[in-house]
């Protein structure tokens, strides 16, 4: 990777921002798992593995499984955010291996929410325009 100068950095930011905001155009599905120490202690790694296994088994090829830090709902971890076209962005709480399988089957394949495990994002991300 070449060293950046300021113009490269700005260009990269704009490209990346577009990429991050591109939600409903093509068929990309994102599964984002909160993997801070608190999430991992609550079993996020097991959930992560279960997602990988379930996605492999389902022959879906446009799913991206990503990790992120603590979302702040430590009482309800592991937390998982699912973003996909045709469905509102959804956060699930207390996701263990079984629920992970259900999310793949019901939310992603059948496009219906897994009731009882939906968690609503209670705070607004304030750094606007991002």
């Amino acid at each position: 990777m070449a060293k950046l100068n300021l113009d490269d950095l700005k260009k990269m930011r704009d490209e990346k921002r577009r990429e991050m905001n591109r939600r409903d155009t093509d068929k990309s599905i994102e599964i984002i798992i909160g993997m801070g120490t608190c999430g991992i202690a609550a079993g996020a790694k097991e959930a992560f593995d279960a997602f990988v296994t379930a996605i492999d088994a389902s022959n879906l090829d446009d799913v991206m499984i990503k990790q992120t830090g603590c979302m702040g709902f430590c009482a309800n971890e592991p937390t998982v955010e699912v973003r996909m076209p045709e469905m509102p962005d959804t956060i699930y709480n207390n996701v263990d291996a079984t629920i992970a399988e259900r999310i793949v089957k019901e939310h992603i394949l059948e496009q219906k929410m897994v009731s009882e495990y939906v968690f609503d994002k209670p705070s607004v991300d304030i750094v606007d325009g991002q």
Partner: protein
Amino acid sequence: MAYKSFILVCAGTGCHSNMGEEIYNELVKAVEAHNISQDVQVVKTGCFGFCEQGPIVKILPEEAFYVKVTPDDAPELVAEHVVKGRQVDRLLYKEPGMEKASNKIDDMGFYQKQFRIVLRNCGFINPEDIDEYIGRNGYQSLGKVLTELSPDDVIEELKKSGLRGRGGAGFPSWMKLSFSKGVTGVDQKYVVCNADEGDPGAYMDRSTLEGDPHSIIEAMAINAYTIGADKGFIYIRAEYPLAIERLEVAMKQARDYGLLGDNILGTDFSFDIEIRLGAGAFVCGEETALISSIEGKRGVPTPRPPFPPVKGLWGKPTCVNNVETLANIPVIIEKGGDWFKKIGTEKTSGTKVFALTGKVNNSGLIEVPMGTTLREIIFDIGGGIKDGKKFKAAQTGGPSGGVITEEHLDTPIDFDNLVALGSMMGSGGLIVMDEDDCIVDVTKFYLDFSVDESCGKCSPCRIGGRKLYDILDKISKGSATAEDVDKIDAIAEAMKKASLCGLGQTTPNPVLSILHYFRDELFSHINEKVCPAGKCKDLVSFSIDAEKCIGCTLCARKCPVNCISGAKRQAHEIDQSQCVKCGECFTVCKFDAVVKA
């Protein structure tokens, strides 16, 4: 077959006890009655954390937010909103003092109670992917500083922002930088990130480093440019392996992109960072002890002055900042000091991250503007006390802090107000206690911690802390007298005046705090030999009410020392001479037959 609409019903504890189940059933019925089950899904969700306005129903994709819904409202919500697409205005949330109902969660004041600056990226980006950080404006502030601002401009911007150190003491951040910058004629300066978070129950720094490591790297580079340093250290305890790993990944990526190392972003500014692992001694969070530890010596404090910004690491000017303080800096540079100043209170601008733990329904990591009240934090964001128990006190500031009681729940939280209440901001651990917690027991825990963590270099802390602990121990055993309480003041006074560093100076705080706010509870331990909460082992005894006991044998099976005897279906008995007062029998008995006295 995709659904077109989703109706979310809150099934959290608060809403559930408030007819949540019935509302759910009515909504399902209404959806079926309209024959739209294949288009609309009714979903039970976790707590929105807005209990005072519950039960809550939210309809997606419009994000309409209905509050105080009753089962009778369900048919109307479905018929009007879902079928005809008209919002039901009378149930939409109205801001206090606002005429117009708001239907979007994002414009509601309640959700503005949390305001994320430090945690802006936590839970949104992949911490191990620098591109995502850049995509959310990362490293732009560093670019701006290197190309457009002089060191004095940066200090001016921070001065305008009013940012004060988030490690606990609240020292103005611009001043620290300005001291270091002002030292001339030295060949080397340093910036240090203090990630030695050690307060019991606090984990906000760890979460920030795990969720957004690049923000700390960027802030350190900005600070280094400001004071003229080319080397930085991150001092972090080895107990945080994940944070360390993510920092290392982040530093490597930053080097690859030329954001760390020589000639950053093509300018003539060079800066690099090393990680230094601490062994987890609490005193190493004190800046002079931290500096000793980085130098490879024992982590013990040294007298100040000279202050580290002037004479620190290896005798060179060293700017030590806490993780949370640093995380604010890129945002202040990006949005300007004036923008930051508007958040929070007159004297303390910005936000504070709290690790909300203890007997609260939604424990977690929250970030609120300074000036938010404890009531808002515990009851609105935290969802109230577990199991509907009564709130007793909140402990802030860890072993250096004190308790805040019911009567002060509405005090706006900032540095000065907390000190006035005899507590302190500290690093941001916020531990909620309910009626079952004994104030003596909790304070003893903190004292035990401080005594353990005292480095022993100065006698006021080494001896005074131990003496205070002994007095508390006597109180909890019921063998203390009123004279013992008189001694507390004298010892505390000596420790505050004569201890070498902040650890010793603040060790008496938890004791003084309960002496002030919980005098009655303290003296019932001393005079009546009673622990009202039933936590102090020596003052409590368990017995079985033969009337209520049905002889299910559960307690006998759970008892760790086998001191409960009795035949099946006969009243059981506890052998008091063997009992260790663990309270297991009291917890497991389903018939309230075990009596705590």
